[in-house]
């Protein structure tokens, strides 16, 4: 993927930000019914807001914000994981963090704990994400090749999925079993500002932890030994990234379900644009992830009302062929 024009980091980030801002606005305009958005935004400030203001502040704004921070989290965590493991196929979806988070959230939601303590939901997600990530990491070993890592990820994903399905079957609610699709595919429909507030603390904390890892990840591209001799504490870096991913992905997935392929695709598409430099890739991938998920969610909303297509269907339709392309491209190193 060679680009005809060389972009500086600043140009790239401002370009991506512009696209994101445009999608953000567009996302607010798109719903099942056309509403005069500017009037709605104005009405929202009134003491007794109108119905269109309610649709704006309680339906469309939370949905857009959730798509934004979830997409950013998945993109960012994918980039950090690929940098840490120096593995192009590492991502929250493939390594099991997302399905682990979904499992943790399912434990909390269907058995009544999260209705008593709302923060139990993201906490369950974080614990699940951390457990799954560590398991894959331990299974595959520190110097794992791509193939080993993928296989360990497949095993943990399958295990998490089986447990989710078992739990949903055992759950007291008659609606639980149908909701397996939601956890596997992910959806942002009908979420409220309360959901956004529940997921925000973990996500911000995760982002914050990842923010300072850029230089260490750059050093890591030279190999573990070199990075260590340069004075970087790798065990500490590893823990920091794993915990950050658990916090951010755990919180996001506990609200949206596991939305696939964003963490894989986005860092890949942007890597050539940042000269393969992990430190620059982090921010770019965060914005890129937000762009992809917002676009996918807008796409879902363009289907006629009543067709409840999960947003993960769109990201997977885009991501899976890309995954195949990556496999073909790296077939020689895999075999």
């Amino acid at each position, binding site marked *: 993927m060679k680009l005809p024009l060389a972009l500086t980091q600043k140009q790239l980030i401002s370009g991506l930000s512009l696209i994101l801002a445009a999608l953000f606005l567009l996302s607010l305009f798109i*719903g*099942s*019914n056309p*509403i005069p958005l500017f009037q709605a935004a104005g009405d929202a400030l009134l003491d007794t*807001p109108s*119905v*269109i203001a*309610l*649709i704006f502040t*309680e*339906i469309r704004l939370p949905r857009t914000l959730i798509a934004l921070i979830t997409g950013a989290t998945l993109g960012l965590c994918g980039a950090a994981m690929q940098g840490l493991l120096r593995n192009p196929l590492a991502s929250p979806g493939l390594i099991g963090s997302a399905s682990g988070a979904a499992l943790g959230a399912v434990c909390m*939601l*269907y*058995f*009544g704990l*999260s*209705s008593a303590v709302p923060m139990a939901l993201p906490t369950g997600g974080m614990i699940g994400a951390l457990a799954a990530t560590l398991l894959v990491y331990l299974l595959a070993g520190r110097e794992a090749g791509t193939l080993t890592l993928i296989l360990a990820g497949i095993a943990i994903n399958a295990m998490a999925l089986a447990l989710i399905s078992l739990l949903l079957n055992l*759950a*007291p*609610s*008659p*609606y*639980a079993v*149908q*909701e397996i699709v*939601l956890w596997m595919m992910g959806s942002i429909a*009908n979420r*409220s*500002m*309360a959901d956004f507030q529940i997921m925000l603390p973990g996500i911000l904390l995760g982002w914050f932890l990842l923010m300072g890892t850029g230089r260490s990840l750059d050093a890591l591209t030279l190999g573990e030994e070199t990075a260590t001799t340069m004075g970087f504490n790798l065990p500490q870096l590893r823990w920091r990234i794993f915990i950050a991913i658990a916090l951010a992905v755990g919180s996001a997935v506990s609200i949206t379900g596991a939305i696939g392929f964003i963490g894989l695709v986005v860092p890949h598409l942007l890597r050539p644009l940042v000269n393969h430099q992990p430190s620059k890739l982090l921010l770019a991938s965060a914005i890129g992830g937000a762009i992809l998920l917002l676009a996918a969610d807008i796409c879902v909303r363009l289907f006629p*009302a*009543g067709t*409840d297509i999960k947003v993960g269907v769109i990201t997977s339709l885009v991501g899976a062929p890309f995954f195949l392309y990556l496999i073909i491209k790296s077939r020689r190193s895999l075999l």
Partner: protein
Amino acid sequence: MSRPLFIALLLLICPLSSQGAEQPARVVSINLCTDQLLLMLADPAQITSISYLALEPNSSFMAKQAKQHPINHAKAEELLTFKPDLILANEYSDRALIGLVQKLGYQVETFPLPSSIEGIQGNITRMAQLLGQEERGQQLIKQMNQRLDKIAQQQLAVRPKALFYQPNGYTSGENTLQNTALQLAGWRNLAAELGIQGYRAIDIETLLLAEPEQLFTSSYAPGSQSRAQQQLLHPALKRVTAGREMIEIDYKQWICGGPMIANAVEQLHQSLPK
């Protein structure tokens, strides 16, 4: 002589012919809706078995009365051991099972699921006839009609706007018992006005734009948790109804059509804004 024994003897001596028509003595119902009508209309001695769902207190209006009868799970072998002379089912009961027992020579009567008061009256009348309990049937209908008439006489000049909202965003449009009950109680049913037929999901933006004054729901599994059920807690729902809480109507009043619809209508009527 103990009282139950005395009654039993009395029943033996004078067979239950007072209601006239010939009465089936071994009736088996395999569906919650026919279970309930059977329990309301038949002599306890006529009831040979009812379905296990009749015992479920959230969905069965007759759960208490159901306890004294043997239950079945609508399986062919099980039914035959009861040696029924009449099997009651509804239009959505297992076709294959009904075909099988009919082939074996058993009489099966299937009842439609009514969505109107006329439909309920029709089912009661037919059930009463089949059981040879016409008088009880007429009595039941009369009582229900009296209660409904009373409410029909106390209507507001302007009907407020209501909407029925269920987990996963389902609502009840035209041709549903909820629609019938809302109208009889004095509400407008926005779902029917939006052209929704039967039970269908309604998009939350569409719901808000319709500006309901009151939302009603009916829990199928109270106390359990799922994303579908969480949807009822969306803060926008409470805000659009000016802070009015969603009102819960017992599911057992209208999961099946029966005279208990009068309870639902009364409850809906009482929740009209004063």
